[in-house]
Each structure stands twice: as C-alpha cells, then as structure tokens.
C-alpha cells in the first residue's frame, strides 16, 4: 500500500459473465483527501465501490482499506468505513433511530454512545423530528439524508459515498456539500462517486475518472484540469479593437496567437499561466479601453469530456 494511503485499489478486475466491468484499475486515496470518482453510466463506478467494500468478489487484484482486505478481513477493513449507497433501500420497518441504533451495535458502540450519536446525527442531517417515524414514511431525499447519517455512526476514517446527494433538493445538496467539506477538514477521507461535476469541482481535492471499466485519470483536481487543457486563453473585451493592439499583443513572448471576434480578443497563451496583468498593461499602452478580461481555464466538465474521448 502506498505510504499514507488509507484506501488502495490495485489491478482490480471484475467480470459479470463475459462482460469486463473493471479492467485492472488502480488508484490510491490518502488520508484527508476528498476523492471524486467520475464516469458515465455503466462505466464501473458502483462496481468499484461494491468491490471495495467486499460485496463483490474481485476476479483479480486487491483492495486495501487501512491495511486490511475487506473481502477477507471485513472486521478490520470495514470498522473504519462509513458507506452511503446510491439510492439506498433501507429497512422500512425500522424508525430512523432504530436503524441508527442497529448500525451502532454492528460497530460495537456502547448504548450511551449509540444514543448520543443517534441524536447528534439525526440533528446533523435535518431529521431530528423524524427519528421516531418509520423509514417507510420517509421521502427519497430523507432516506438519502438518513443514509449519510448511517455512514457517520462509527465516526469513520473513510467515507465511501455513491451519489450521496441524488434525490436531494438544492438546499440540502448545498448543506451536504458543506458537511463533506467540514468532514474533510476534520481529517476524514471522503470517496464520492458523483455525476455532479460542479459539485465535485467545488469539494474534491482529487479525482479519478473511469470509462468502460478503465481508469483514464487519477490525481489532484488541478492536475486533471491541467492535463486536459490544451491551451489557456485570455479573453479581452475592448471598446474598440485596433490593429496596433492586436499586433503589439502578438509580439509578446508568452502569446501564441491572437484572434479577433468582434470587439473581443482571444489571446492564446504559450504557457498555462495567468498573464492577465501583462495583457492588460499592453492594452493600456496601446490606448485601448478594456471592458472585461477573463482567463478561460478549462472546467472539470471539459476535462471530463476530453478524458472520456481519450484526452483529445
């Protein structure tokens, strides 16, 4: 296992019959990382998660969580893991309090600890007034909230969440995004599978991208943006575009090319650096009136789409 990593997946392969759902995937997640796991439907995200938890038997490769293999040693591997499945189907005959209590028992928590945690977590996920009601009466969003609470009952070192905010309203989504950020600040490692790229870009420190059962990228979020950015562009909107401004900009060392689109200049940079200061100075020198100046960096969505197309 890599030094400092709490979750390590190496050469994991999983077949469903003849279909290769995971093709020798490898990645590792260090303590304190918020790792976003991205991929289109059917790419293998949920299969990865279920194999990581020992629910699926890998055909090849192995998973280690806190130095233990969840498939062979679930007692040690899973005691530090909190898991919130995608669209969870919980035991509807229990109340929220009863299910939290049961899960607390499964982690060997004392009665007092379970009672305290149950109250605290129901409050945290906004279900304090629903704790004594049967789960069968909960809405989809409430079940999702309870699922996150269940994943926190053991104060986990690693939280594994499969589409945790699916079915939640925008307010709850924002609330949970803050929760995950705060948990990360507390030192928890968070592994999130999500389709919401904006959400991932906001809260994740690292990302892994999977497509057709293969990892196409795994690393820091800045690195993914950098890797899949072909060229940085400064977009300058001027009151009037003159030939002198264009030609002077073209002469700058860091400028590759300048394209004119109406009263906008698209200044293509040779390096992936922020040269807005230098660009604005040059425009002022040429008596240009600058209305706006933006650095067009790639978004995670662009990077994701390029990664799925093989980096093109």
């Amino acid at each position: 296992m890599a030094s400092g990593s709490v979750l390590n997946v190496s050469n994991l392969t999983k077949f469903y019959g003849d279909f290769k759902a995971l093709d020798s995937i490898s990645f590792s997640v260090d303590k304190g990382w918020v790792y976003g796991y991205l991929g289109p439907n059917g790419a293998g995200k949920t299969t990865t998660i279920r194999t990581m938890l020992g629910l699926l038997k890998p055909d090849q490769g192995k998973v280690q969580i806190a130095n233990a293999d969840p498939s062979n040693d679930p007692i040690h591997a899973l005691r530090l893991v909190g898991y919130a499945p995608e669209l969870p189907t919980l035991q509807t005959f229990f109340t929220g309090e009863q299910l939290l209590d049961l899960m607390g028992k499964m982690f060997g928590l004392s009665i007092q600890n379970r009672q305290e945690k149950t109250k605290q977590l129901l409050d945290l996920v906004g279900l304090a007034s629903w704790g004594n009601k049967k789960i069968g009466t909960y809405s989809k969003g409430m079940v999702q909230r309870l699922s996150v609470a269940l994943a926190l009952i053991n104060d986990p070192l690693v939280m594994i969440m499969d589409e945790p905010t699916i079915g939640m309203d925008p307010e709850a989504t924002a609330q949970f995004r803050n929760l995950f950020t705060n948990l990360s600040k507390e030192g928890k490692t968070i592994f999130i599978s999500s389709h919401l790229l904006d959400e991932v870009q906001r809260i994740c420190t690292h990302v892994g991208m999977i497509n057709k059962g293969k990892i196409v990228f795994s690393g820091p979020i800045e690195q993914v943006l950098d890797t899949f950015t072909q060229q940085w562009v400064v977009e300058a909107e001027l009151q009037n575009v003159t030939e002198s401004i264009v030609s002077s900009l073209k002469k700058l060392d860091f400028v590759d090319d300048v394209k004119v689109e109406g009263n906008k200049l698209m200044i293509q940079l040779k390096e992936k650096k922020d040269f807005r200061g230098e660009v604005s100075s040059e425009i002022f020198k040429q008596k240009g009136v600058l209305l706006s100046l933006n650095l067009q960096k790639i978004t995670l969505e662009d990077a994701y789409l390029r990664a799925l197309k093989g980096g093109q």
Partner: protein
Amino acid sequence: MGALGRVAVIIGYEWRRAIAKKKILALIILAVLFQALVMIALSRLLSYGSSLPGFGTPSLFWIFGVLEGQGLFVQLIAIITAGGSMSEEYEHGTADILLSKPITRLEYLFGKFLGGFFLLAMVEALTTVVGIVLSLLLIGAQNSLEFAPLMFLAIVYSTLIFFSLSFMCSEVFRGSTIAMIIAFGVFIASSVISSIFGVLYNFGGGSAYLYLSRGLPTWAATNFPSLLMDQLIIGFGTTDTNALVQASIIIVVYAIIFFLIAAYRLVNSDVSKKTG
C-alpha cells in the same frame, strides 16, 4: 465486540425483521387457533366415550393434541420463516447495508439462521403451552406433563430439516417465493414417496424400501417427536429405539448439509443487488 456479539446483533435484527412481517404474525395466530381447534375437537370426541381407540388415554391427550396440532403447521412455519430470511434482504436491497459493516459473511449467516430458528422455537413454545392449557381446561387432569419441555424441544429439533432446506434455497436462489415453493415441493414429494416406499416395505418389498422411506426428509421431520414420546412414556405408543436414533441422525445430517450449501453460496459469491 467478538464474533458472538456480532452474531447476537444479527439474531436480534432477524427477530425484529420477522416480527415486522405480517405474514409471520398471521402464521402464529393461525397455528395457535389450529392448536385450539384440535383440542376442542378432541374434547368433543371424548364426550362420546371415556376413551378413544388409537388416541391413547385421555390423561395423555395433551401429547396427542400438541403433536397432531403442530405436526403440519410447525413445518409450514419453518419453511415460511426461513424462506424469506436471506432472500428478502436481496429482494429489498438491504443486504448491502448489513454486509458493508464489520461482520463476516459466516457470522451474518449464523445470525440469520439462529434468529429465524429461535423465532420458530418461540412460536412452538407458545402453541405447546396453548395446547397443554387447553387440554387441562377442556379434557381434565393430564399425566406426564414433566415431559412437556422435552416434547417441545423434540418438535423444534424436528423442524431443522425443512427450516434448513428453505434457508438454503433462500440463499441459493435469492428469491423468497422460489425458496418456499421448492421447500414445500420437497416436503410434499418426500411425504408421498416415503409413504409409497413404506407401503412397498409392508408388502414384503425388502428392508431397502424401509431405509429409503426413512432416508427421505419428511419421515424424520414428522416422526421424531412422536418416536421420542414413545420412548419416554410407556404405553403411549410402540417403542422403536433404532427408529428414534435414525430420525435424530437424519435430521442433523440434512440440516448440516443444507446449512453448508447455504454457507458455501454466501461466502463464495457476490452480494446481489436489489432484485425485488
């Protein structure tokens, strides 16, 4: 928390799950009602004479009443209780929640098995008590009541075969309906075939037919309690020590085989996603 603690958590869970299922409660009510009807019928029959040929003496009617009252129902409850035990977790998608916790699959399996089996024992205890109380109230003073706990244990032990069979089918097929249908099918087919072999033996077909008849699961499951009572209470019926030993061995062998198949399936395969 040790392995026993984790198994105990699943036993508790299984109790609550089974009790939450209305079909189990309905079966308990039906079993108690059926027990009461048998006792009422026996008391009405007795009103035609002081004894009934083939039923033993009235002072031992509690044995007859409890054995006959539960002979079929307890096997049906065993099949229904075990048939949903594993499969309903797959059907409802709740197996993921439980098996992603720090518990081994074998601990989970033991917990599920024992939880369901203890629930079945509780139902049987209830119906046995109802049968004895009604026999005292409707028929009069009863003898040999000190053997009631043993008879209760014998009945519970006799359910192991079909409980284990249904439990195994529940895990192997991961569908409660198919598990129950197969277990019921085996119960009926085994009863019929065992009876045919018994008839062939009685018509001089040789001892092989007797062994075949006894080797099928229904014979041991349905005869073990009465064979034990034959041994304990002289005069209640005919005594056949060999048959009692055979029945007790057959029950445990079938139960172990069925349990091991279920364990093999759970330990060596993926946890199915929601199927229901």
